[in-house]
């Protein structure tokens, strides 16, 4: 084999690898904690449908934005709000106009004890509990929504001393599921199964009681060259993904 043939073969191989790489890439996704269950399912479908794979990191939106501002490696952010993606676009870290709402979050008042929370949320007025868990409103949109609901019910002043705040909605769920807090405001997606509250007891807070929790996704500049990143964002708008999002109790963006 002459050197030239060798070189050609090498180039062909490199090209093949490159194409293959373009064909089946991996995208690194930062996912808001409330969306961890549906996103795990969506990622599986995404892999089946496209051959690409998605590496998921779960946490609070605030932490992800903070990490991205400081060189974090994520290629797609699935935020719990619209603020985070907007800020990343403003700061030149995300691709302009790549932002869209993928789901509308729903709030639930939930207890690990069956029969504890009635389906009207009257327990908030009757009281008898020592702790009410919610996500820190400064950090998590589900916390902001919970505060809004309490203010609307004119219970904020009365219940504020009972607040225990989770750093994100996953931690809030943990406080309630270990029964350390008798009840708390969690994301409906955390407690729903087949359209019903799966265990314990809960009240699905009517959507008109709080401003819509518009959860937005955005393509980061780090992921602009990775074919799997826009593919994932497209997949989020596909029928199979929307079906999963709906199954977990989210409203679909219009």
């Amino acid at each position, binding site marked *: 084999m002459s050197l030239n043939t060798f070189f050609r073969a090498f180039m062909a191989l490199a090209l093949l690898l490159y194409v293959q790489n373009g064909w089946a890439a991996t995208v690194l996704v930062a996912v808001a904690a409330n969306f961890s269950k549906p996103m795990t399912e969506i990622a599986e479908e995404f892999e089946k449908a496209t051959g690409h794979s998605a590496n998921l990191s779960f946490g*609070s939106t605030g932490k992800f934005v903070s990490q991205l*501002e400081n060189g974090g490696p994520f290629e797609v952010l699935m935020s719990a709000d619209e603020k985070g993606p907007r*800020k990343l676009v403003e700061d030149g870290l995300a691709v302009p106009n790549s932002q869209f709402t993928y789901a509308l979050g729903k709030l639930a008042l939930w207890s690990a004890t069956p029969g504890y929370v009635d389906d009207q949320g009257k327990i908030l007025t009757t009281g008898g509990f020592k*702790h009410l868990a919610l996500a820190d409103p400064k*950090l998590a949109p589900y916390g902001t929504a919970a505060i809004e609901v309490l203010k609307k019910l004119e219970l904020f002043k009365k219940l504020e001393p009972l*607040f*225990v*705040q989770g*750093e994100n909605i996953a931690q809030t769920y943990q406080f309630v599921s270990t029964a*350390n807090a008798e009840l708390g405001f969690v994301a409906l997606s955390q407690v729903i199964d087949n359209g019903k509250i799966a265990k314990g007891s809960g009240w699905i807070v009517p959507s008109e009681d709080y401003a819509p929790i518009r959860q937005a996704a955005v393509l980061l500049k780090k992921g602009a060259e990775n074919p799997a990143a826009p593919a994932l964002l497209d997949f989020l708008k596909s029928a199979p993904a929307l079906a999963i999002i709906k199954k977990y109790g989210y409203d679909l963006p219009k």
Partner: protein
Amino acid sequence: MLTSADLDTLLLTLKVAGISTSVMLLLGTPLAWWLARTRSAWKGVINAVVALPLVLPPTVLGFYLLVLMGPAGVIGKFTNWLGLGALPFTFAGLVVASALYSMPFVVQPLQAAFTTIGQQPLEAAATLRASPLDTFFSVVMPLAKPGFLTAIILGFSHTVGEFGVVLMVGGNIPDKTRVVSVQIYNHVEALEYNEAHWLAGCLLVFSFAVLLTLYTVLKTQPVAHQLK
């Protein structure tokens, strides 16, 4: 600048650290004494248990404490029976968690100090008819003074810096469980970098001052060496 909420978290942190350190000294001194003297087969086991928080991720300890101290947990049932209620989300719960977490930093320097004293001064005291308690207070304590100082400083400062355990069992309640490390974390997550810088700077200066005191004024060995 530091806001008044930030100052509150600083004060609360000092309070938690102060009380935890007292608790650790009260429980850790007899424990360290026993560990330094005993020939019991249990010594190895107890040593390992005391040192566990050194290697265990704080989140593991925090998670277990949240479950065990909760209303359905063993400790939670016991404290409920005592009429104290469940400990998570309370100041007392934070002290208990902190004391457990920082215990090796108190017990190990004390144990090392007690071991170094050896048998001779105790025997001398005994020949002078000093009671064991008298011996402890007038012979052992002065001889083990550097050990006590190291234990106090390390126990205190380690509690000040603790984060993972508090995050898991605290619930971020102002004036009760919102300590400075959690406040810094929240500032960073809320992208309030300016506030985060101020508080973080305070902790940095504090930690450096503590270690400087330890190594210059008290002239102790580096911590890593002490813990061996």
